């Protein structure tokens, strides 16, 4: 049974999808569909979420206890599973954001210096 590589998350860098999902949930709980669109729209469609890999990511976050879920009714009046950021998830988001900022700054420094 060969485990295939996790599907490429569109143009989203590997490992960053988790962080983006957590960020989307900061303000309010949301269901999967909303999360995908929120990421795409907030990034001005620069990032495309592959919908098939969004849900496994959500479930993984739930297994780790960073989000919790419950079934509810969406704005469209349809049943949907809503994900809510937990305290543990909030801490993880802070940590991940910090790591990300550090790295992009480092990369910026290098790119900004050597170009022209």
């Amino acid at each position: 049974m060969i485990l295939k590589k996790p599907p490429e998350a569109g143009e989203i860098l590997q490992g960053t999808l988790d962080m983006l999902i957590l960020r989307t949930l900061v303000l309010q709980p949301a269901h999967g569909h909303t999360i995908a669109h929120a990421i795409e729209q907030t990034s001005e469609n620069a990032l495309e979420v592959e919908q098939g890999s969004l849900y496994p990511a959500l479930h993984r976050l739930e297994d780790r206890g960073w989000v919790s879920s419950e079934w509810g009714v969406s704005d469209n009046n349809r049943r949907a599973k809503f994900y809510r950021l937990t305290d543990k998830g909030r801490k993880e988001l802070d940590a991940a954001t910090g790591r990300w900022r550090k790295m992009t700054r480092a990369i910026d420094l290098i790119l900004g210096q050597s170009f022209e």
Partner: protein
Amino acid sequence: MNFKRFQGRSKKDRDFAEEIESHLAHEEDLNRARGLTPQEAHRQANLRFGNPRTVREREWRFRSLPFVEDLGRDFRFALRSFSKSPAFTAITILVIAVGIGVNTAVFSVVNTVLLRPLTYPDPQALVQLVNISPRGAFPGASIPRFNLWRQQTAIFQQVAAEDFGGAGLNITGGDHPQQVQGIHVSADYFAMYGAPLAAGRTFTAAEDSPNGGHVTVLSYSLWKSRYAGNPNIVGATIQLDGQPYLIVGIIGPHFVTENPADLWVPYQFDLNSHDMVQFFTVNARLRPGVTIPQANAQLRLAADQFRREYGANALPPDGGFGVQSLQESLIGDTRLRLFVLLAAVACVLLIACANVANLLLAKAASRKREFATRAALGAGRIQIIRQLLVESLTLSLAGGLIGLALGYAGVRLLLRINPGDIPRIGEDGAGIALDLNVLLFTLAISLLTGVLFGLAPALRASRTSLSVALNENGSHASVGVRGGKLRSALVIVEMALTVVLVIGAALLMRTFMKLQSVDPGFALRNVLSMTMSISGDRFQTSAPVAQLIQQGADRLHALPGVLDAGVSNCLPMADGFGMSFDVVGRPHGKGPVTGGAGFCSISYGYFSTLQIPLLRGRAFTRADIASAPAVVVINQAFARQYWPTTAANQDPLKDRIQIGPGAGPAFAEGPRMVVGIVGDTHDRGPDSDPTPMMYIPLAQMPDLETALNSRVAPLYWFVRTQSDPHTFINPIAAALREASAGLPVAHVLTMSEIEARNIARQRLNMLLLAVFGSAGLLMAAIGVYGVMSYSVQQRTHELGVRMALGAPTANLRNMVLRHGMTLTLIDVLLGGGGALWLTRFLASFLFGVKPLDPISFLAPPLLLTLVALVSVWAPAIRATRVDPMTALRTE
């Protein structure tokens, strides 16, 4: 690893499916809001999401341990497939169970004897002190040796002396005098073995010195059986051989010594003694951190000191002292014996494996289409191999479970029938336990067996060529030439191993028959032997012993049906005492004395009771009393060795012998006239040559020697009766009790029983190999039959064509027979060759049979050929009954 991911998988999947539905619905809503038609909105949503099944499957797999699940599925499949062919499954499991059962049985003995540590605390530190001479290392100690050894405190924590066997003591002073196993020990004995105390204390050093008083320590079982576990018995006095003994303590349960004891009394050695007689054995506990080589180095120095102190006669220059692990010395040569048995059962297991592999190959042939179908549906080679291995492992583990029960029950039953002289297995093998070692061993060989017999068929089945297999007509599906060759090879291996086993069994059987036919040199029929302990103060000199013998013999002769009675202080067919001697007037050669020989003190009726023939001179009579001239009778082996020529000046009957020159004060006596020569007896068992023996009258023993003797050995009474001696036991015991003023007798055995016990080891060897050999033979027969009948079945078409073309049926039959017998011939040659090489390991178990005994090497192959012929006959006959029309029509 986050184990949450494996929980509630089905529920999570249903949840996920619903979630996907919800997602698609929302996406559709969005698309419709963008103005797409409902159909297009649905299509786009699905397109965007991808295949929901794939996503779900991916997550399902993420939440699973694929290997475990596949194994589980294969296992369930295996069970289904077995339930379809119950007969095949039952036979296979039975064959494996027998193979694993015999291995479990032998391993449980190996485990108990070789692997399990002694029951004492920290048993690795226990050693036995040995005397080293050019002939080897032997246990045994004299008081000066013991005294020197116990002073080696740098290497030993405790040093303790104990009896070799013990003379037995009589608990008297009640209605039921009882002979018990009383063992003399020195004070440190209990501390050395770490014996637990149930009550009271053990001996003090003062109690273990001369004039230390009469004290004893009881074993737990004697305390329970004779004194009903009464705790007040400590401090009470019991009568041992008429003397009051103070009970100072009771040893706790579970203290089992290799030399079983009912009670212990202190030796009370005079450590200043210069007595060089070695009449007891010494064990010691090493100090923590001291190794056996270190102890041996220290004991080399001690040997030099011993020589300086007691002179070169006490310890020859090439002699010395050493230690051996106590466990090693208890096991002795049993190790090799058990390894031979292990090899034999491994052979049985391999035969079983070959047999099962053969059955599986046959089954795989009929399942060829099944595998081809599976392969066509996408199963890889690995998957097919794995599935078949799971099947064979299921079979082997089931067989292993049954084999475990079979082996455990079998070994207990077998050792109850015949303990076979194996040390450390307890009474009737009761010491053999089913512990973790045995369980792990059985599990391991079950797994190994499963892989061994499953791998070849699995590999073959997985190599199936799809198009060929699927296109082949079902009933005609064959494994092809290659499969046939593999199966033939397996049968050859199986039968060759069987030849080896059966040849080994034949050699041991011939050994046993030879042993049984050895004339022991004395009467076995209608002779009863029994022991009488004379350890009490009454028998510290020879006169009362002589009187006891005379009174006892007279009373026995008065019993109707009793023909003769005699006494000795050694048991024929058991290791006796040895003593050095000088032939008076003969110049010494290199050594300090003329030689050494077996030594036994007997009564006047001894030779006639045991019917040991008198060859020359006279036997002892009533007149050979202490005041009469000192006499000795020798046996033929003695005469031959020391009077090799028959010249006139070389007549033993004209010589005198000085027994035990310089052996110490206990043996101080004058020279004895050789008055008679008697026939040889096989005292060291029928498989060794007769030892040269010197016999002296008990009545003429020096008093000190009698005193010493009464402590280390009982008297053996021998009574020859007119008919079955068992019916005389009670009157004989009563007569002897009267004659001895109340001494009981114990260990009542007929001489035939003693002889049977002496060859118990060879009997067990033979029995086991015979069982293994027949198991192998049976399996080999099944194997040959299987291969031949399969081959006939495969060739039905060919045979039909031949028959249609006019081949006589006899030709067809002979063709099959020829094929089968060619196989057999190869096996016999291979097996015989293997046996030629392997029987060298059996050489030390053989007696009177050469390792290349022609009968043992010819009979088994003939037997096997016969068995093969019978097994091939039925398929051969079937070949002639092939109906050409039917055979051709199956095309």
